[in-house]
């Protein structure tokens, strides 16, 4: 126990917290995913050019898999009013961007947006992590939220 406390204090002191992602909002119950949960989920790797052209590989869990696990209507449930739903991705520093459910669903946009926890095989560190979004088809990088903490599901029509 003492060891765990020490680790917790050290990670806070280093400005790093253990990977943890909260999904909340208009879902049956909030879902908290820890590093080990993400490690056990379906994983993908994407190789994309970084901001300055360098090729980097990100590995993690597709955003749609995380939302499915949280009970967000996707697949055959994504129709009617459910299509007026979006996900607000929030970062540790307060940065926020929005994704619609339609853009990531396989039957619609089928965007392979990733919640990444590894870059070139190593855990994300420093300002990047411990979790970040990677949007391989976005031309600009501004929706690839670094230091991702929360996904808030908003259903405009219930």
């Amino acid at each position, binding site marked *: 126990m003492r060891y765990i406390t020490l680790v917790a204090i050290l990670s806070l*002191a280093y*400005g790093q917290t253990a990977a943890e992602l909260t999904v909340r909002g208009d879902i049956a119950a909030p879902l908290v995913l820890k590093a080990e949960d993400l490690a056990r989920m379906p994983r993908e790797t994407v190789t994309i050019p*970084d*901001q*300055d*052209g*360098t090729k980097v590989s990100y590995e993690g869990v597709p955003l749609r898999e995380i939302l499915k696990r949280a009970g967000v209507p996707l697949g055959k449930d994504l129709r009617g009013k459910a299509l007026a739903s979006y996900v607000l991705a929030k970062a540790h520093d307060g940065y926020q961007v929005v994704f619609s459910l339609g853009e990531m669903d396989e039957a619609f946009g089928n965007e392979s947006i990733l919640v990444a926890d590894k870059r070139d095989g190593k855990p994300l560190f*420093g*300002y990047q992590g411990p979790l970040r979004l990677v949007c391989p088809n976005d031309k600009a990088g501004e929706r690839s939220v670094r230091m991702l903490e929360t996904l808030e599901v908003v259903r405009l029509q219930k």
Partner: protein
Amino acid sequence: MRILLLVLTCATLEAQRAYVWNLPKGFPTPRVPADNPMTAAKVELGRHLFYDTRMSGNGRTSCATCHRQELAFTDGKAISTGTTGEPHPRGAMSLVNIAYNAVLTWSNPGMKELERQALVPMYGEHPLELGLREGDGFLERLRSDPKYRELFDRAFPEPGERFTIANVTKAIASFERSIISARSPWDRYHYGGDDTAVSDAAKRGEVLFFNQHLSCFRCHGGFNFSGATVSEGHTVRDPEFHNTGLYNVPGGLGYPAPNLGIFEFTKDPKDAGKFKAPTLRNIAITAPYMHDGSIATLDEVLDHYAAGGRARDNPNKDPLIGGFPLSAQDRKDLIEFLKSLTDEEVLRDRRFANPW
């Protein structure tokens, strides 16, 4: 005759051998113009020219006078001085990683090739820098030196006149492109995966740097901590220029002439005071700061940005310069992070040093 042929063949082979960049894994490869491929021989000629005071009209200065290796190829002065003593309105910019710059100089949106830029210090009159003039015998001065005859032969083995201004600028540009900084503690931390290469304070400072409240990275972004970069296989977005609220003087344009930023070229009053965001690599040793050296220390640079600009009411000020609270600890951490971008190797690498 056979020996001569052999020598010529060797020179041709040397010139044609692919240039080795020696970049860390993951570091982008510079983009080089098709008509001036990198060769070791051209870089070597360029280095000799860069450090040669015969590059100036009165024989007093060279490129290296204002771009000193030990200061990351700046001169440590607020504003630089030309070969005749005429003050330059702006400070000498670092040449480190210049190969990656999408746009050159402080505020010329059209200046994109190092070959063309070299002509500005060589022949420019406003301001006068090296003070060369047409018909001043510059190329003859070079030709009269056997060392240059050898260097030009190796760098430009193709038949025809070797001693041309175009070849001089090609060689200087090649040398400038070779000055790559990729060995700072931050590089060892990021590209080398060495967690101990930078201090915990620097790691905290890095998180602040990339934090949206400070948004330093929005202008000083990417691996070069600068505005737009170009590299192999990477398409650049339009380079941006920023008014950071340094001045708001009366007279309509807000900034003191002649340093009006890209307004000088676009003539759009909204562009007054907009300058390039230079690289922050080696920033700890390139004081004083800003286009006119008007801020002496990194501490004061942070004061300027934390205040939302020292002249925060400038109407052209970039909306990103909104100011932010900065604790004493945050300030120390940010400066430690900036110091982690200092590449001691590039400051003393013999490949970039005076060959004479």
